[in-house]
């Protein structure tokens, strides 16, 4: 039973009407989750700007507040006061709706992310399916933005986004199934509880595939093709300004927050950890993941669009299939022996597969005769 449900029951013992005992905890939960996500988004913005600056031998924002912690707030204020420009020939409704369609699903996903043992908004028994379903909606929003802007750069970015997000959904889901098989449940809470040994050890390959897929899903370097600023300026949000742009900006970091939380939950043991309170453990894992993502962003060049698709379909997808079958076989036949044997097998398998693919697989693509 989650804390919110318990709160509802307690309200009922105080003779609150049935609907109030349902609505009040729900509203409270919404406020807490929203507060958590938005606060984390703001901290992530600061963290990324500051850390990226450190990687790039510069200082980064350091004026507003200690270590520049209030800079994102100032940026937000500036963006709020900016003029909102809509291109003359844009599809006004779609253009207006797109930032909301991109941003809302990010908040929705947090309904099933456990922040502590019972601190979860809704402990759905199909939590993983919910996550996969909701996180795909953002692709529609990005396409709406590209289409509605009536801008060729935006359209190019939007076209790229559809191809990219649809392709990377496959390996992500396949590596998720491995986790679900091992945990024996689709519920996020159960998956966390099943991780006496974190799944990153039990399925290193699954983690790697999910991590790379997540980078592509949230459009981060080296898969940031849809907003490749050196190629197509800003991609789908070229024509956005003011608060609508801020929605995309926050959406980008919101995506990072969500995927970090999901990876931490599914592979790193979520809120579990000794001594410290659960929420602190979750945050430690989230920030560690985000650090790696910033590190990659600060270093890696970008893939080309055909190489990106080739990487998804020729490398990640087959590896995810192999990983899935191996995990299924282990769950079926090796359940009685100690899990450390499975850890060993899977590490060897991961190293072997990655080495083999790095030898055999070529990104391909290249010049087209025209």
């Amino acid at each position, binding site marked *: 039973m989650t804390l919110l449900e318990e709160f509802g029951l307690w309200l009922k013992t105080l003779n609150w009407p049935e609907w109030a005992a349902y609505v009040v905890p729900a509203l409270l939960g919404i406020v807490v989750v929203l507060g958590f996500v938005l606060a984390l988004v703001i901290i992530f913005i600061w963290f990324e700007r500051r850390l990226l600056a450190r990687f790039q031998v510069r200082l980064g924002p350091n004026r507003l507040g200690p270590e520049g912690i209030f800079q994102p707030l100032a940026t937000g204020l500036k963006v709020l006061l900016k003029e909102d420009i809509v291109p003359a020939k844009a599809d006004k409704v779609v253009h207006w709706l797109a930032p909301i369609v991109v941003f809302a699903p990010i908040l929705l996903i947090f309904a099933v992310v456990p922040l502590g043992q019972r601190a979860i908004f809704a402990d759905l028994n199909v939590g993983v399916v919910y996550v996969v379903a909701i996180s795909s909606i953002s692709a529609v929003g990005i396409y709406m933005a590209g289409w509605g802007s009536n801008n*060729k750069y935006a359209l190019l970015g939007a076209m790229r986004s559809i191809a990219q997000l649809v392709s990377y959904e496959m390996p992500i889901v396949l590596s998720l199934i491995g986790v679900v098989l091992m945990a024996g449940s689709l519920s996020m809470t159960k998956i966390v509880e099943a991780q006496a040994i974190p799944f990153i050890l039990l399925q290193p390959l699954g983690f790697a595939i999910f991590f790379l897929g997540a980078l592509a899903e949230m459009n981060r*370097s080296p898969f940031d093709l849809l907003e490749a600023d*050196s*190629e197509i300026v800003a991609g789908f949000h070229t024509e956005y300004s003011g608060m609508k742009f801020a929605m995309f900006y926050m959406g980008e970091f919101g995506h990072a927050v969500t995927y970090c939380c999901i990876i931490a939950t599914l592979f790193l043991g979520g809120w579990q950890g000794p001594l410290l309170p659960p929420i602190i453990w979750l945050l430690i894992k989230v920030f560690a993941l985000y650090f790696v993502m910033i590190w990659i962003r600060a270093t*890696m060049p970008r893939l080309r669009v055909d190489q990106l698709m080739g990487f998804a379909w020729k490398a990640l997808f087959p590896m995810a299939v192999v990983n899935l079958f191996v995990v299924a076989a282990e769950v079926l036949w090796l359940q009685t022996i100690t899990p450390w044997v499975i850890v060993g097998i899977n590490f060897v398998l991961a190293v072997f597969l990655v080495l083999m693919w790095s030898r055999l697989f070529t990104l391909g693509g290249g010049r087209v005769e025209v």
Partner: protein
Amino acid sequence: MAIKTEPFILNMGPQHPSTHGVFRMRVTLDGEVIVGLEPIIGYLHRGIEKLAEGRTYIQNMPFTDRLDYVTSMTNNLAYAMAVEKLAGIKVPERAEYFRVVIAEMMRISSHLMGVGFFLNDLGAMMTPVLYMWREREKVVDLFEMLCGQRLTYNYMRFGGVSQDVPEEFWPALKRFVAEMPKFIDEYEQLLSLNEILLARTKGVGILPSDMAVNIGASGPVLRASGVKWDLRRADPYSIYDRFDFDVPVGSVGDCYDRYMVKIEEMRQSVRILEQAIAQFPAKGELCANVPLLLRPPVGEVYGRIEAPKGELGFYLVSDNSIAPYRFHVRTPELINLTALREMTIGWKVADLIIIFGSIDICMGEIDR
């Protein structure tokens, strides 16, 4: 049912983050594939060649700063050498050494920017650029000691250089030369063997050697195509015959070769700098005695040097007046750029950006 598709025209630039200035390309795209490309230049045209005809020879020196503003010193040098050839001025030895040291520092600085922005075009989010700017900053600091300027130096004079260096210049230069090889290794470790970089640049935007020669390409673009042509060796000017250095060449002429040639040239420049500092004459004249209102004899002259980006030549015609009758600049970047269409057709939008970036241009010189 087959969906009807048609190519569309994308206007890249003049306002675009990767056009390195105000270059405009009208690109015809079939999806992501480039089927047509029309470069449009002239957005930064200032009429320098015509303006120069109304000014005295020395007054034209600051104009050359504003050609390729990333390599002002070598522009100064090329112009000064053309005028010296026209007027028959002899340059003192110490000034020649100054010129070589400065030219090689300028080459390092220009290649740092070229390589850095090339990697930035590849999508490596500013990090390589900012690392390379750390070193460029040192070069710029040294130039500031020389002449007080950080971008447009106006340092060369006909028959020498304008002023002597302060004492603190030499230790700073020696430290820079000593540290530079380590930093070049650092850049190479960061990305040169990166899988994504190799996949993106190997075999992309090939400029075959015969086409490179036919269009008149020069500099790293020509050498990356495998043609060993460096004016410092092929037509030695100044005192370059006194130094021992190699001319790095590429093999196929793709973006990766153009990237590696620039990296290698930086190493060679460091070698030249080391030798030049060791041989540097302690005492001597800085500048030959040249009248302020120079009246070169009637005649025409073409003076050329190996600028960081290729053969930079000045064609000057004198009618024995105080101003040049004709002032023409042979800019390497404009000529290197002429093969852009042939190099990019069939590649994708992302490749267009890196091919364009690998040519390493600066609009100030192309539009003049």
